[in-house]
């Protein structure tokens, strides 16, 4: 195996001007604005860690959104408009399309339980506040709270209360000033 590593695309990362690249027409991957912001944050914080994957024609196979944010001022200034690329050589359109999908799809999801543990560590041990977490992890307060409080049933109840009870919400509210439970009905 080791003797072939030099043939791997990643062994030949090149820096080229982002203006030379162009997007493919079929990319099914959509990145929502908060995640795009996070991607930018990621490059600004950690620097470029992953190349953009292109064909010899310089059409993008994977990394369209990295390429998009590379046009933003602060990121452009990091490298003077150069972006790291690796080239997939001699591939047909079908292979290119499938490579795009595989790059996007072959990844896991973050389980909520381990995420809750991480959130507690970041907040308790590392004293990161919500403002920082909003920015550095692209999480809104709602997600931070749900993970950090690890889903207590008190929180579920609180959310259920605020969910309202349709037309009778006022009636139930009044009744509950003196009772733990809502009024029964026939």
């Amino acid at each position, binding site marked *: 195996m080791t003797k072939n590593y030099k043939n791997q695309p990643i062994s030949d990362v090149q820096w080229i001007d982002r203006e030379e690249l162009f997007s493919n027409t079929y990319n099914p991957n959509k990145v929502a604005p908060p995640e795009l912001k996070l991607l930018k944050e990621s490059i600004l914080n950690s620097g470029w860690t992953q190349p953009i994957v292109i064909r010899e024609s310089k059409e993008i196979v994977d990394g369209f959104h990295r390429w998009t944010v590379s046009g933003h001022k602060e990121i452009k200034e990091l490298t003077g408009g150069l972006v790291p690329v690796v080239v997939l050589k001699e591939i047909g359109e079908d292979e290119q399309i499938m490579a795009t999908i595989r790059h996007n799809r072959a990844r896991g999801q973050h389980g*909520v339980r381990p995420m809750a543990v991480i959130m507690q560590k970041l907040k308790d041990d590392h004293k990161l506040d919500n403002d920082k977490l909003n920015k550095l992890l692209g999480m809104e307060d709602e997600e931070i709270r749900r993970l950090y409080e690890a*889903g207590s049933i008190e929180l579920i109840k609180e959310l259920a209360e605020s969910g309202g009870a349709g037309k009778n919400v006022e009636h139930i509210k009044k009744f509950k000033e003196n009772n733990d439970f*809502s009024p029964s009905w026939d």
Partner: protein
Amino acid sequence: MGKKLYTTVDVYTRALERVEQAFKLFDTISVGFSGGKDSTAVLNITLEVAKHLNKLPLNVYFWDEEAIPYETEHYVRRVYNLEEIDMDWFTVPIKHRNACSTKQPYWFPWAEEEKDLWVRPKPVEGISKIEGYNSDDPNSRLMIPDLDALSRPTKKYGTVGRVMGIRADESLSRFLQVSSRAAEMREFNYIIPFQDKGASGGKVLPIYDWTTADIWTAPIKYGWDTNECYELEQMAGISPSAQRIAPPFGEEPMQKLWRFPLCYPDVWEKMVDRVDGARTAARYSTTELYGFNKTIEKPAEMEWEEFILTQVQKHKPQMQLEIITNIQRWMNAHYSKTSDPILHKAIHPDTGLNWDMILKVAIRGNTKGRRMPKAITKHRDLEEWNKRKARYDKELQESTN
């Protein structure tokens, strides 16, 4: 029960009263326990009453549906081990809907022939045989409501009050079950009598009027043990009223299938190979691929009936028949009320029907004899009726122009 008439008594107190009454009416009281939040309430309330009436241990039954989180299994086991509880933990092969797949519309939890695919090992407490139920043959396997009767035959249990955690605010179809006209005519509006396959008695619904907030107030106030699943689902961002622990492959639960890889990765790993279409549904169940929200576009050259038929034909033959029967029932009901055409989007003011709804049933498949969408009558809500009528007339005019 149809229109809510509030009383001055809180739901908890009323639930205790209802259960106490049920103990008087039936020979056996048996709690249908699912491990879900509603069944936590009925279990603990019935236990409270049973203690008070000196009727311990409390009879309980649980249908283990195989593809359930370990959190649920652990919670059920804690309940099983309580001294006051006498639980039947059923692990018999049953028939389940799989709305994820057009190729495999049913799946069979605990089927012996698929032993190597089981999502979880069979619990040691499990009861795998029920007298009078042939579960070896896939064709004779039953769905859970039908098995309820076989599991509690009159010859052994007398009349049975099955205490169940069904609530009106859970879903519209369940509300209809509770609020049917028949219920208004009965002395005890929270009891639905049944007589079925050698069993008789009543479904007892003591918490039908509880809100989701009440469901959580009770365990906090009384320190009841609960299923940890809800805490996980809440972390995953599922709202309290949408949290479910039901088997995840039916039409409605499927829409939240994506929560499994997030909350229950160990179970999910097995689930993807257990039923056909699970991975596809986790990705697309809330898109037009599964008839959700947006429906698939009808080609302009095709008539509606024809287009709907093409969608029905994507299902298995047996399922096709069920879907068509259901659609015909809807359409007959429509044309028995009016000779107006069914329109694409605007629902008919008197029948509540449009092609989009029919199309959804055709795409999703349907096994439940789904009720026709509710029409609102002129005298009940004239304002809404007028609105619908205006919308209907507008679309009718546009479509004929």
